[in-house]
C-alpha cells in the first residue's frame, strides 16, 4: 500500500510539475469542453447537412469523373458548401474562442517561458515616453540580483537596457525610478514552473490582458514598459523541442475528434 501511495504521489507531482503532463491533461480537458460547447452552441442539424452536402459533391467528382462539366460544377459547389459550413461554424466559434483564448493566455504565463537560470545574464529593458526621460531613469536591485554590465542607452528607441544576473532562485522585484516616480518589475529566478510576466505595461488594456501578468504602470509615469527577456520554454518530445502551443494544438484536436465521435456531436 505504501508503494502504491508513493506512486500516486509521484504521479501527482509529475502532473503538477511536468509541463508535458500539464499540456496533455489540459489538451484533453479542453478538447472535451470545446466539443461539448460547440455541440450546444451550434445548429447541429444544419452543420450535419452542410457536411453531408460537401461529402456528396466530393463523391460526385469521383462518380462522374469523365464528365468535366459535372466535375467543375461539383468543385464550385464544394467551394460554396465550404463557405456555408464556415458560416455555420462561426457562431459556435464565437462562444468557443473567448474561454479558450483566456485560458490559453493564462497557461502561456506558466508554459510560454522558463524562469531565469541562476547566474545567467538576462536583459531588463525600460521603454520611456521620450528620449529625455532616459537620463532620469535609475535602477534599484535586490541583493540577489546583480548588474553585470553598465546600462546601454538607446535614445532612438527611447530605451535603456541593463544586463543583470540572479544569484539565487526566487521571486524578486527590481525597482525603476524616473521623474520622481518608482515602479517595480517582478523577476523570477529558478528552474521550477512559475507564473511569469515578461513585461509590465502602462495603459494598453487589451495588450496588457494578453501579454502581462502585472498591474499597469501609473498613467503619469514616463515609463511605458519594463520587460525581461525570459528564455522561451520548449517541451521535449522524442528529442524534438517545441512550443507548448503546437503540442496543445495537436493534442486538443485529436482529443476533440475522439470526443466528437463518442458524444455524437457534429463538428
Amino acid at each position, binding site marked *: 500500500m505504501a508503494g502504491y501511495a508513493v506512486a500516486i504521489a509521484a504521479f501527482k507531482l509529475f502532473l503538477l510539475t511536468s509541463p508535458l503532463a500539464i499540456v496533455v491533461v489540459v489538451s484533453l480537458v479542453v478538447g472535451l469542453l470545446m466539443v461539448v460547447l460547440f455541440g450546444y452552441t451550434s445548429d447541429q442539424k444544419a452543420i450535419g447537412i452542410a457536411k453531408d452536402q460537401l*461529402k456528396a459533391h466530393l463523391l460526385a467528382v469521383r462518380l462522374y469523373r469523365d464528365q468535366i462539366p459535372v466535375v467543375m460544377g461539383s468543385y464550385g459547389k464544394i467551394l460554396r458548401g465550404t463557405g456555408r459550413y464556415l458560416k455555420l*461554424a462561426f457562431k459556435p466559434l*464565437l462562444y468557443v*474562442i473567448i474561454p479558450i483564448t483566456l485560458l490559453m493566455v493564462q497557461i502561456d504565463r506558466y508554459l510560454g517561458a522558463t524562469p531565469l537560470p541562476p547566474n545567467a545574464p538576462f536583459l531588463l529593458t525600460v521603454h520611456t515616453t521620450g528620449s529625455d526621460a532616459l537620463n532620469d531613469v535609475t535602477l534599484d536591485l535586490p541583493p540577489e540580483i546583480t548588474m553585470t554590465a553598465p546600462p546601454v542607452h538607446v535614445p532612438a528607441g527611447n530605451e535603456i537596457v541593463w544586463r543583470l544576473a540572479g544569484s539565487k532562485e526566487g521571486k524578486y522585484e527590481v525597482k525603476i525610478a524616473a521623474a520622481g516616480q518608482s515602479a517595480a518589475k517582478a523577476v523570477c529566478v529558478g528552474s521550477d514552473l512559475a507564473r511569469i510576466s515578461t513585461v509590465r505595461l502602462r495603459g494598453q488594456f487589451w495588450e496588457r490582458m494578453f501579454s502581462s501578468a502585472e498591474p499597469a504602470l501609473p498613467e503619469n509615469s514616463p515609463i511605458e514598459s519594463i520587460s525581461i527577456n525570459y528564455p522561451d520554454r520548449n517541451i521535449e518530445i522524442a528529442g524534438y523541442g517545441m*512550443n507548448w502551443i503546437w503540442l496543445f494544438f495537436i493534442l486538443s484536436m485529436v482529443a*476533440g475528434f475522439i470526443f466528437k465521435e463518442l*458524444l455524437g456531436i457534429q463538428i
Partner: protein
Amino acid sequence: MKEKGGAGNKHWLCSPFAGKRARASLFFLLLAVVLFPTLSHAYAGPGAGFAVLSSFWAIFVAFLYSFYALMTWPFRQLFRFLRRRNAYGKATFERAVILGFDGMDPDLADRFMNEGRLPNLAKLREKGTFSKLRTTFPAISPVAWSTFMTGVNPGKHNIYDFLARDTSNYLPFLSSAEIKGPKRHLKIGKYSIPFGKTEIKGMRKGTPFWHWLGNAGIFSSVIRVPVTFPPEKFQGVLLSGMCVPDLKGSQGTFCLCTTRASSDKFREGGVRVPIERKNGVCRSYVPGPENPLLEKAGELRVDFEIRPELGSRSARFVFGSEKFTMKVGEYSEWIPAEFKAGMGFTAHGICRFYLKELSPEVEVYVTPVNIDPGHPDLPISHPVTYSIYLAKLFGPYATLGLAEDTWALNEHVLDDDAFLAQAYGNHEDRERMLFDALDKTKQGLCACVFDTTDRVQHMFWRYLEEDHPAARDVPHSQHPPVIQELYERMDRLIGRVMGKIDEDTLLMVISDHGFKSFARCMNVNAWLHQNGYLTLKDGKTESGDWFEDVDWSRTRAYTMGLNGLYLNIKGREKQGIVDPVEADALKDELQKKLDGLVDPASGAVGITGVFITDAFYRGPYTENAPDLLVGYGAGYRASWDSVMGKVTGQVFEDNTKAWSGDHCIDPRLVPGVLFSSHKFIEDKPAIVDVAPTILKLFGLALPAHFDGKAWNLATKASAHQG
C-alpha cells in the same frame, strides 16, 4: 446528442450572451484577439481548428480529385473517343431518358388524357408516340422489368414470378437474389464469429442493355429499376430497386408497437410488439436482424422510449441516440437504427415512426428497417458510393425494394392517408434522384422507375368502382379520386422532365403492365383439389400454408405464386408422380378444363386463358418455369391463400382487402403504356423491344440472343418543341 424535430429550443448556454452588453463585450474581446495577436491566441482552440481542418480538407480533397480529373481528362477523352466512335458516331440521340411508371394503365391514361387531366402526356401522344405496350407472360413486375432490361423472354433471364419453388421440398424462395452468410465460423463459447463475406447471388440472368452501352463507352444513370439487386458492375451509376431486402432480409416487415394486448398475428409483412407503460413512460423496441454472432440466433433490437407530453397530442421519442418529437398522425424523418450484435459488429438501418395513438392506448407504427443508404451493410448500388452520394445529397431515403407498406394498409395498421403520405414521401425522394441524374447525365442513358403508380393503384382501385367488395362501406360518391390524382402527379413530373430535355434527347415513358380490378379471388389449388389433381392427406379437407397437408404421392398438379401452375413430375419434383411422357397430355387437359372457367356467383369468366409455357419460353432456364400460366379474367386474381400454397374449401371468394387492383391476370388484358417524345413506327410494340430499340438508337449492333426487335423512328421532331 443529435436532435431532430422540436427545433427552436435555445440552450441555457446561449442565454448569458443574449443581451446587447454581452454582445458588445464579445465584439471587443474578439477585436482585441484580432488586433493584438500573440503566440498564445494565434491558435484559437480546437473549435476553430476543426472548422478550418474540416473545410480545408474538403477543398483539398476536391482539389486533388479535380486536378486528377483535369490532368487525365484528355487521355480519357481520347480513349473514350476511340471507343465511342461507333456508338455516338451513329447515335440518333445524345441522350435517352426512360421513365418507368410501374403499372401505368393505357386505358386509364387515355381516359384522363381525354378529360384534359394529363396535358403533358397528351402532348407526347400528339407529337410523339402513345401506344399499348405488350407485357410479358406473366404480367408481373420482376418478370416484365427483367425482360425490359435484358431484351429477352423469361426463359433467358430466369425470372418467372417474385417467388420460385424448390423442387426438393415444394417451398418457395425469392426468385431474384439469394443471400448467404459466410461459410466459415469461429466458435468461441456462445459466439460464432463469421469469416469471409456475405455472398449475394443474383438469380436474374441475361445482360441489362446499359451494360452494352457501357461497353461502348456510353454512360448510364439507372435508378430503382426492379431486379437490379445485387447491383452489377458497368460503366455508370445504378441504385437498386424492387427486390432489395430490408435489414431483416425480408421483403419488408413492419412493426406495430402497441399497449393493446393481442395475440393475433399479421398474415404477412408485419409483427406486433408490446409497449410497456410505467410512470407515464412507454418503452418498446424495434426488432432487427438475427444476431449473426450467436450460435443460437437471437433477434437484435433497438429499444426506444415514448414520453407523452402533457396536454398535447405529441410525444417525445428517444430511440438509441436520437431524440425527436412527434404529433399523433405524423411521420418522423428517417431515423438511424443501429443494431449492435457485440464484438464491434453493428447492422445499420433506418426506419420511420408513425404515431398512431397516444390516448387511451399508445400505438406506433414503424416502417420496415431499411438498409441505411449512407452506410450500406449490403451493396445496393453501383458503385457502392452512389447510394452514399444520394444519401449525403438528399438525406436518408427508402432503399427497400417494396418500400410502400401495402401490407400495413391491408392489415389496417395504416389508414389511407398515412399510406399515401408514406408512398408520396418515397416518391418525392425518387424525383429528386431523377432530376439529379438528369443534371449529371447530359449524354447517355438516364432510366428511372417509379413504383408509386403500381402501389397506389393496387391499394386504391377499390375507389374507382361502384361496388368493389373492399369499398362497400364507403358510398361511391365519397370515394376519393386517389388514382386520378396519382396520374395527374405523374403527368406534372413528365412536364418538369420535358422542361429539362432538348431535341437531342429521346424521352420514353413506359410501364411494365396495366391494371385491372381485383374484386374476386380464385384458389386454383382448391379447384385442383376438387377436381382430383391435388390430394390432401387423409382426413384433411384443407391445407395450411405451403402445402402443409398435401399428399404429394397422390398429387399431379399444384399452384404457387401468382400465376404459375406446376405439374408434380417424376424425377423433377422430389415426390413427383407424373410421368414426363404423360406431362403434355396433362397440360392439355388442365388447359381445357381451366380456360373459360366461370365464377358461379357472378357468371363471369374467371380464367380467360391458360398458357402452356413450352410454347413461348425459349432459353437455357426454361426448366425453372411453371408448366402452365393461369390468365385470370378482369376482376379476378389468384387468392391470397392460393399464392401461399394453401388449399381452401372455396374456389371463388370476394377480395375485401385494400389491395384491390391487380395485374397478375391474363397478360393480354393488361398491356403497359408507351409514350415517347419522338414518333415510332410500330404496330404492336412490346416491352421486350425496348432494349434493342435503345441500342439501335445509340448506333450499337444488337446481340443475336435478343428476342425483341428495334422500333423504327418516324421523325426526329420532339414533342416538347410542339
